[in-house]
């Protein structure tokens, strides 16, 4: 996926999943799921527990290879893609249960997000000299910008294992932003947060979308949050897509209500 990839104009389809089917042995995690993500939008994926939401994200960024179906990203269709290739192609993500480099500082964690952007060769880096030094300084500037943006200056030098959960989630978002992704996948970014932290996180997500124009796909349980953020919502249940519409329409959809609340027999 390295090298020039075609640019996608705002509003056009950035990523399309077509008839994706994923199974683990006899257990079907996803069945025939199709949807698309348009450039510049905030797209939500919702559904009850075990609906296959995280599996869908894992397929998009290459952790899982679907048995059937195709993923088209930036106009390129691929059959199999490794996670680091997805990252190189411009897909960044966060995890449901924060996955950070716990013994490293906030600064180093976010710097790690710049891994793919570093181009200078090893010898220069070893010598801390010349172009490599310039490059390091440039990356640091970008990282400091992100730290500023997420309001985490005070914890720059703290090993992230020591931080409270809410801040860890923010550092994780920072690391994903450091990749300057075209598509940002957020797996339950507000899970386990209190009201105030949730509001902060919502603000950051909206700001990222507005400021950097980053396309965002997020999984979220809190319907209020989804209503505030997303323009379009995909609803999954037992691995199948049961609705795909605006938040308001989804809320009135009979299938969705049945999936969440159960139906009278």
């Amino acid at each position, binding site marked *: 996926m390295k090298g020039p990839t075609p640019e996608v104009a705002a509003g056009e389809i950035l990523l399309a999943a077509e008839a994706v089917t994923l199974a683990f042995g006899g257990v079907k995690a996803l069945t025939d799921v199709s949807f698309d993500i348009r450039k510049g939008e905030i797209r939500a994926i919702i559904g009850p527990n075990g609906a296959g939401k995280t599996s869908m994200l894992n397929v998009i960024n290459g952790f899982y290879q679907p048995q059937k179906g195709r993923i088209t990203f930036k106009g390129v269709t691929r059959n199999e893609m490794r996670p680091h290739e997805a990252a190189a192609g411009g897909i960044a993500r966060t995890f449901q249960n924060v996955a*950070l480099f716990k013994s490293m500082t906030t600064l180093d964690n976010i710097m790690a997000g710049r891994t793919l952007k570093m181009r200078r060769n090893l010898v220069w880096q070893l010598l801390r000299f010349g172009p490599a030094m310039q490059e390091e300084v440039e990356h640091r500037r970008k990282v400091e910008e992100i730290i500023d943006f997420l309001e985490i200056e005070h914890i720059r030098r703290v090993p992230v294992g020591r931080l409270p959960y809410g801040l860890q989630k923010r550092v994780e978002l920072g690391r994903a932003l450091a990749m300057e992704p075209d598509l940002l996948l957020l797996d339950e970014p507000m899970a386990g947060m209190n009201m105030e932290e949730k509001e902060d996180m919502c603000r950051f997500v909206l700001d990222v979308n507005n400021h950097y124009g980053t396309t965002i796909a997020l999984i979220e349980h809190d319907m209020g949050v989804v209503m505030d953020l997303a323009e379009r919502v995909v609803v999954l249940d037992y691995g199948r897509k049961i609705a795909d519409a605006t938040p308001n329409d989804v809320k009135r959809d009979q299938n969705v209500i049945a999936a969440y609340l159960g139906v009278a027999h």
Partner: protein
Amino acid sequence: MNLLYKIFLDPFVQMAAAPDLLAQTLWEGLVAGMLYALIALGFVLIFKASGVFNFAQGIMVVFAALTLVGFYELLRRLGVGPAGLAAYVALGLAVLVMLALAWGVERLVLRPLVNQPDIILFMATFGLTYFLIGFGELVFGGDPKIMIANELNLPRGALDLKILGGLVSLQKIDIAAALIASIMVAVLAVFFSKTRIGRALRAVADSHKAALSVGISLEQIWVIVWFASGLVALVTGIMWGARSEVSFALQIIALRALPVLILGGFTSIPGAIVGGLIVGIGEKLGEFYWGPLFGSGIESWLSYFIALTFLLFRPQGLFGEKIIERV
């Protein structure tokens, strides 16, 4: 009282009385320490990049040394050039074999175990150990071999210094070993802390999936780190092999590196070298000055005693990262 005097005072009186002997002992401790540090370094490299204690490090040292000598013998039998040329060709081939080993380990052992608990990876290194023992015996036979130190142009003989009112004798090969070990440690330390790949290595040790998500290729990182540790094993094999012989018994020196690791901390490259020096010097001083008091076995337990004492005060080792866990 007499015993206390013998333990706490008499050795120091002896040290002061014959400074040349003390210098000789310290030098031998320094060299032993450097060699311990080399072994410890192999462990630290893999621990840093995968959070796994590589049980196979000891056998990798033996395997690397056997490969070198094996290739040399083969080349000589095929009638390749002068001994020196054959030795360097064999060295090049041994490096390639270590690269192939790193690649094989990544492909066949580590890749199927991505995202598994550390203990699973640890157990896999046991399997690797027995595979290498069996494979090594199959290919090279079980007989001890002589390290080709002369053919590799490693310096021979001794350097005699007339200082401190006596004679201090430094083996030239020891000087070379100390130099090479220091250079390797310095390069690796900078590599780990200052380069993009170094940062990626630490990231992989902390979380596989997070590393993957920022675009770090686990395959590449693991091949690099196992190759680096294979090179360290090769150098260790040459240096240790030159002092005794190359046989499967050599793998127990890996156990001698354990107290070094405990002292230095499993994650620190400078720690490996400082730990190695403390253990090496402590061992030689203990053997020479306190040995007569306790009997001659002191060398085999003193290093563990030193390590345990340090462990009481710094459980993470001298240079290890402080273990932080949110409750």
